[in-house]
């Protein structure tokens, strides 16, 4: 029962399964983001697709395995990452990818041991990219979109301010 309780939730129908949401054109990308914002959970597949869209403006990997391989090859995901595609993304796993993407060095623990879910999560909370969180929590679709918005603010504060003004 304890093991079952610790399992992360499953997402039944991932948005990335349909071309309407998984393409690289503007329509598919915007459909993906704004449909995701209505979902109760964000799957690993959706989160990694979103991360690639955010980082590159496109996602040429057609499958979850290719997305994982792409992110691992770029050092954004740890080599040990092996979560199923339809599991809800854990905040800690996503935090590792984000601190690597943003080149956040963190405190001494991250300097010594590298990005780990627990400390990557805490670092993002400190940087106001995450809300106060534990690494085991998941994200709803709207929360994931909100965090990606915060990435934008963090990485391009001036651009955000300039466009806002």
């Amino acid at each position, binding site marked *: 029962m304890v093991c079952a309780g610790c399992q992360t939730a499953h997402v039944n129908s991932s948005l990335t399964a349909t071309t309407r949401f998984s393409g690289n054109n503007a329509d598919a990308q915007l459909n993906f983001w704004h449909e995701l*914002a209505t979902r109760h959970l964000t799957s690993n597949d959706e989160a990694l697709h979103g991360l690639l869209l955010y980082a590159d403006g496109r996602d040429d990997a057609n499958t979850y395995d290719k997305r994982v391989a792409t992110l691992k090859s770029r050092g954004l995901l740890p080599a040990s990452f092996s979560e199923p595609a339809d599991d809800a993304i854990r905040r800690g796993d996503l935090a590792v990818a984000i601190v690597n993407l943003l*080149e956040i060095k963190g405190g001494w623990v991250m300097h010594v041991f590298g990005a780990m879910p627990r400390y990557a999560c805490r670092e993002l909370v400190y*940087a106001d990219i995450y*809300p106060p969180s534990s690494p085991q929590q998941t994200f709803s679709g*709207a929360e994931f*979109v909100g965090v990606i*918005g915060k990435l934008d*603010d963090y990485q391009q504060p001036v651009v955000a301010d300039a466009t*806002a003004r």
Partner: protein
Amino acid sequence: MRSTLIYRHFCALGLICMASVCASSALASNAAATSASPAAASQPGSGTPMRIDVVSVTGLVQIRTGDDQPWVSAMPHMVLSEGAELRTGPHSSITCVIPPDQTFTLDRLGTVRVQDAVRNGNKVKTDLIMKYGRTHYDIEGAGLEHQATITSPSSTLAVRGTDVVLCDQVPFTPYSISYTGRASFTYGHSTINVGSKHGSYSKANGGTDGSAGTGLSETVVDPRYAASLTASDAALLATEVARGAVISYNPVSGIQTVSGGRPSYDSELPGTIPGTLDFVLRWTGNANLNLEVGVDPGDPLTNILNGFQKVEFLYPGYGLQNSPSGGHIPYDDIGGPLGGEEIAYWPGSHPSGLYGIGVQFITGLPTSYTFNVYENGQPVEMFYFATLDGFTQLVKSTQQTRPIGPGQFAGSLVAIPDQQLLDLIIPDDPAGNPNPGINPPGASSAALMPAVRALAIGARTVRQQPATITPAARPPK
């Protein structure tokens, strides 16, 4: 007359509150069933519908004119009307103008619906419903009576003749910002005023008792947040980002850090300096150098005779990035393969006196550094020791370039305002006045020297003119 005015304000406030409640109700209905048609909740007010002009689009932005209409890519010069809905992707924004005096911008990952945009005589009513995201709303407020609101699922911002921002995006607390004027921010069951008439930047988080409470809760000002940057800092950092630098924040030193990118070239530098007095350190090697500026206020000549006394000190970080007289260092450049650039500047008036500009080698490989000082946009002579005719003596130059290595420190003295007596008696640096600076790869420094010399001569000519150079006369940034 006074009572009439008060009555009009009271009525307007009442209308705003009613509009807020109505809009909140409409949005609550939408939030409860997002698939339900928002058009059913839309009840445009009586009056003449106003046109909405798309003036700027960045990144992925789509619009639709109604719920049953397809999304289409937004383009500048498109004309929209009531009921239009906008949505943006990452790194994107769209700016619309509702003539004559309203402008709103929806930036990254948001969606907004223009619920009402009507004009009835001298009254203009505008309601924006923002499902999530961040919207900047600016009303000039001259001549017309505005009744404008931005409504999100958990908050409402009533706007009237102000320049405001509303951000509402889970899982974060909504907040509102007023750049000028006062807006009414409703969150939960409480309504607070944000900003004040003719006031400046003010931010209120939802759930606080206003700007004071928000300011107290944010006792550590993190300059990473865009709105906490001054316009000058924002422009400087935008320049760094445009050159490929990565912006970060060092919580230990408490200052924004810049890594990567490159230093300004000689030709670019005069156009990027932000202040009335600017001290610039540039370097080209893979090293981390830090700029230091000391101030000895008073008469420069007297201070030279008495010896330099450091009364104020500027350093990138550790609380030393601001000085009592207004000096400021906006960021700490920690360098990169192409070098870096740091700047200290006074945005307004600056004290007369003797200034010291220094460079401290922090980490990395030996490199060459370049100092520049500008007062009111014009280069100023720096005084330092160099070998001339086999002797080490004091020389001057408007641009100093020297090597520096690990553990070393170097500095120069600068008289503000420039002292012609010193300029006359102290010889030019044998390496040139100005020294060779930093130029694009492939550009011959010898070929560029005439232009640099001409600039320096022009600057000296300008300084000899009796007319005062005002900040307004500075070259455009």
